[in-house]
């Protein structure tokens, strides 16, 4: 997403990383119990991933996270009027780039004088899972994060917890 941010900055597209709660807390990076801890772990995130985007922190209660839907790695594109132009419950750079290209093309046609009329549309997104990278990330967080995710996957495979939503989320 930083590469996408760099590529589109010259075309006026802003990019933000909004830091929320820890999704897979572990011994090395536990759940937040203070705002100072949240700031410290956000600094580790910035360094670990060489994040070049501005990082804004949600409060300790997750006020912003809750207001946008509380998904762990969602992406929104907002317009200059602060209205939602695009939203996805997971972040996939190629899908976001597809949306940015489309929205920039719309803006360009509007500048050229084409009459533009907004309408409602939806898109089923697809993402390529980085299984190895995700496993390395869990190990970085601590052994407990690895164990808890393994146990959660078993529950999901039995149709429990998020597994009960597979049909709703288009996975069956």
């Amino acid at each position, binding site marked *: *997403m930083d590469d*996408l941010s760099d590529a589109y900055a010259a075309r*006026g597209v*802003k990019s*933000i*990383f*909004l*830091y*929320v*709660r*820890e*999704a897979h*807390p572990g011994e090395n990076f536990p*759940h*937040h119990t203070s*705002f100072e801890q949240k*700031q410290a772990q956000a*600094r580790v*995130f*910035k360094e670990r991933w060489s994040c070049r985007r*501005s*990082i*804004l*922190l*949600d*409060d*300790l*209660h*997750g006020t*912003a996270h*809750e207001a*946008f*839907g*509380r*998904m*762990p*790695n969602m*992406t*929104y*594109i907002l317009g*200059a*009027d*602060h*209205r*939602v*132009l695009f*939203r996805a419950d997971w*972040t996939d750079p190629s899908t976001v780039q597809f949306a*940015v290209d489309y*929205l920039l093309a719309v803006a360009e046609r509007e500048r050229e004088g084409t009459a533009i009329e*907004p309408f*409602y*549309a939806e898109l089923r997104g697809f993402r390529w899972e980085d299984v190895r990278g995700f496993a390395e990330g869990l190990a970085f967080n601590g052994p407990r*994060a690895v164990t*808890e995710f393994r146990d*959660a996957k078993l529950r999901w495979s039995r149709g429990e*917890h*998020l597994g009960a*939503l597979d049909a*709703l989320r288009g996975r069956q």
Partner: protein
Amino acid sequence: MTADSYNYSVFPPENDVEAFAHFMEFLKVGQRAPDPELTDLDTGQPTRLSSITRQGMTVVEFGSLT
């Protein structure tokens, strides 16, 4: 939601089922987005998304270290 229940210590949080189930009906495109107070990591100063969105289209990714 309290800070303790929001910042779960054991994955997965049970109330995530609700969030995952309702996202599709939540904050549709075309609606005005929330604009709660945030903190800039680099400056430590309070800010809001609207201070950025008013400059143009803005991609906002939510996430964390873990």
